[in-house]
């Protein structure tokens, strides 16, 4: 069924081609479709709200927070909950809500896949763009295939890794995958395209077209357009991987859901005890194969074979199209083996091999340089981040922090954090900097890799204080690194030219960057007094605004490295901040 007739049927305007299915089934199917649309809309709404848009109302507030719980899809993801529980032996903040979905799955089955999951809905939609396949070929390609067990083996390997605090599930868990792909790949690309179009209109200098461009900006900036263009490293590859996943739906319906999704696999295992399921009246089945043609999960809905409970997405397509009323979904269905297989089809040896793969990969990750020694000096983590080993056990690479950062500073790593840390966040000061009063990244992190902090904690003031000094010696600011001068490139140091933009922009008070006037003789023999900047490393918090604004922009004369970061006990210069106080 193609996309247009799908939408029409949703509106109740067009009958399904196989009209004679059960009315009951068709009604539930309609609810399922509405549910998919609602949750997908909610997902996109929250994604667009993961940004402080600067919309102003008449009330003043000093604290900036996002209006909506934008990370809720990630927090309710059962695999995020399970894998972080395994790697950290705890559940962070809102992740407790994932228990609702887990409980629901245990009781009902994989309703999440069919009714809620945004990547599932997107895949479902793109699956309707198929080459014309008829008859036997169409039925054949939509059957359950043995390779669909791959998602379980992937899940086991990931769990094995999580057991030893290396959290890799975020790479292919569908919710983080979708958020990351859209935030760092697809949406920035769409933004650039839209802006090019609107700016072209604006640059025409024709009044009407300029008004049109302004109107376009106004309408779109509450949703798909971000305030300013966002750029991300590896945006191309992340976007292309996502588009590939979409295109694969052209060949196999819901390719991701059936073959790759570890969350689906996890929920397939959880639905073992489901109280709700399919019952078939095998005698009535006349092998018309309509159920198989429209099946989303490849769960063998046809008569005369057992139904694969672990694969079923509860889409109700089969029930809606079966002309002989073979299929019925109910609570407490019969459990005879010819009716249902509650367990997925797994080979024991493969299962053991999957766990083994995870166990073997981890020591190889850890024996590589990068975590224990020779840490990349430019790996600057967002403020509030936990110590690196804990961080790698929590970060699901969802990209929420990258999306929300107002200066676009937070970027995905490649190998700066080792292979284990692929696409975890780091700050790149040439792109943005850490806004001194901002804690938005810590507000959106679903797993506590960036622990939630307040402005007072970040600035090192006792809570509720308004900025007076000399109160508590204990309250120290959170540092993410330290700035250093390259005196061979700095204007006052190397070229005897006045500057000190860095000092101007340094946000601490007293400023971490301070200057001393020095008389110098220039190349033409004249003398001049220049102010030469230095860093007080005890005051510096590593925010990086100095590096960001330095006029020697190709390779800044002042730059930040991660030493001095308060989250690490050992990565310190100063005795006072070290581990052995």
């Amino acid at each position, binding site marked *: 069924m193609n996309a247009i007739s799908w939408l029409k049927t949703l509106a109740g305007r067009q009958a399904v081609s196989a009209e004679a299915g059960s009315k009951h089934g068709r009604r539930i199917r309609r609810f399922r479709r509405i549910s998919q649309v609602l949750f997908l809309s909610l997902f996109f709404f929250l994604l667009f709200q993961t940004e402080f848009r*600067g919309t*102003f109302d*008449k009330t003043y507030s000093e604290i900036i927070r996002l209006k909506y719980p934008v990370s809720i899809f990630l927090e309710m993801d059962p695999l995020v909950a399970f894998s972080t529980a395994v790697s950290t032996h705890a559940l962070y903040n809102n992740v407790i809500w994932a228990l609702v979905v887990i409980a629901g799955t245990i009781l009902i089955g994989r309703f999440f896949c069919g009714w809620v999951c945004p990547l599932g809905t997107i895949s479902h939609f793109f699956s309707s763009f198929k080459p014309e396949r008829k008859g036997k070929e169409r039925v054949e390609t939509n059957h359950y295939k043995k390779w669909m067990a791959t998602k379980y083996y992937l899940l086991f390997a990931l769990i094995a890794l999580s057991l030893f605090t290396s959290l890799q599930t975020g790479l292919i868990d569908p919710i983080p995958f979708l958020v990351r792909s859209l935030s760092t790949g697809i949406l920035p690309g769409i933004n650039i395209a839209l802006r090019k179009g609107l700016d072209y209109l604006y640059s025409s200098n024709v009044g009407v077209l300029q008004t049109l461009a302004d109107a376009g900006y106004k309408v779109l900036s509450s949703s798909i357009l971000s305030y300013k263009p966002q750029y991300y490293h590896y945006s191309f590859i992340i976007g292309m991987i996502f588009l590939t996943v979409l295109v694969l739906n052209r060949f196999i319906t819901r390719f991701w859901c059936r073959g790759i999704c570890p969350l689906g696999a996890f929920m397939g295992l959880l639905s073992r005890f489901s109280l709700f399921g399919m019952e078939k009246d095998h005698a009535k089945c006349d092998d018309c194969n309509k159920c198989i043609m429209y099946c989303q999960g490849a769960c063998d809905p046809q008569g005369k074979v057992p139904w694969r409970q672990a694969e079923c997405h509860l889409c109700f397509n089969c029930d809606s199209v079966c002309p002989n009323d073979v299929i019925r979904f109910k609570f407490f269905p019969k459990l005879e083996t010819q009716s249902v297989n509650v367990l997925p089809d797994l080979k024991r040896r493969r299962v053991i091999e999957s766990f083994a793969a995870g166990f073997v990969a981890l020591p190889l990750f850890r024996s590589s340089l990068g975590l224990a020694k020779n840490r990349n000096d430019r790996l600057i983590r967002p403020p509030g981040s936990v110590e690196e080993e804990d961080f790698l056990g929590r970060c699901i690479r969802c990209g929420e922090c990258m999306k929300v950062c107002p200066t676009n500073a937070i970027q995905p790593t490649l190998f700066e954090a080792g292979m284990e840390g692929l696409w975890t966040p780091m700050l790149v000061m040439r792109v943005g900097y850490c806004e001194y009063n901002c804690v938005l990244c810590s507000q959106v992190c679903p797993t506590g890799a960036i622990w939630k902090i307040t402005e007072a904690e970040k600035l090192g003031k006792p809570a509720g204080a308004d900025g*007076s000094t000399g109160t508590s010696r204990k309250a120290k600011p959170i540092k993410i690194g330290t700035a250093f001068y390259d005196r061979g490139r700095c*204007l006052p140091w190397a070229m005897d030219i006045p500057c*000190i933009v860095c000092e*101007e*922009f340094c946000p601490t*008070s*007293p400023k971490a960057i301070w200057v001393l006037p020095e008389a110098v003789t220039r190349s033409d023999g004249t003398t001049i007094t220049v102010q030469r900047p230095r860093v007080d490393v005890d005051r510096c918090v590593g925010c990086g605004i100095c590096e960001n604004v330095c006029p020697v922009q190709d390779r800044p004369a002042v730059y930040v490295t991660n030493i001095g970061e308060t989250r690490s006990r050992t990565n310190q210069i100063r005795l006072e901040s070290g581990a052995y106080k």
Partner: protein
Amino acid sequence: MSEDKANRREFLKRSSQAGLAALTATGVGLWLWSRNRHPQQELSAAQVRSYLVKVPQPAPAMVVVSGGSPGQLVVEAIRALGGMRAFVSRGDIVVLKPNIGWDRVPQQAANTNPEVVQKVAELCFDAGAQKVVVTDVSCNDPRRCFKRSGIASSAEAIGATVLLPEERKFRDYRLNGELLSVWPIYTPIVEADKVINLPIVKHHNLSRATMGMKNWYGMLGGRRSQLHQNIDVSIADLATFIRPTLTILDAYRVLMSNGPQGGNLNDVKLLKTIVAGTDPVAIDAFGATFLGLRAEQLPYLTIAHKRGLGNKNCDQLNVKNINLA
């Protein structure tokens, strides 16, 4: 015989089609060749933006009001200068250019006081302004600056149009400066009938002080940090390019140290003063005294004075002092 006619018809048809295609290709080719030139941007001619109005005499050149709330200070200052109607006409588009440079709250005195901005906007509307625009090109993230400074909410509350800086609205202008030639300028600030400068008095380690003339930094885009290499001439160039209708200097709170953004409340001094007038050089010269500086200590004032942009010797001017306390 008819066969010949048919052949001839076909001959003509095909020849004219081929000929037309060839001519079109040649014509387009020649036209493209005529456009051959090294790619470089078109620039506007030198511009000096003057929004000065003829002020009815005898008005004081400068008014210094102290000892009230920000709103009260503004009202008294404008009244002493002759009322806002002397400066704003009915139907005007007025741009207010406060300092919204930094992600700070009003108590930290890094941005113009939001109540000052609101009162000025209110007076402009009362004088018949059709539209009052409040904008600046911030140093920190503009969304945060506009919000936490309080200026966006106070301006919205009075019905002013708050504009966040947007990339497409910068255009290169040729400034008429000694040092600054071409710079991207944020066009909403200069597309107005009247422009009112609303700076705040702050310490600045490079220029010693940042007040009214340096506030024009906020209309620049591009890599404006380069201006630091010759800050005094740059400030004078900016003040040469744009001459506001009014300057209202906010000294309600003054940032005495660690400027231009401070952060610590101990850097701030509560002075409850406003200085207003039409001479930007005189106003800056007077404002320097709040920081404990003399006009001679600010080289950019001397340069501006020499260029005839104003008078840095406040004692030569008709200054009106009002104390509301």
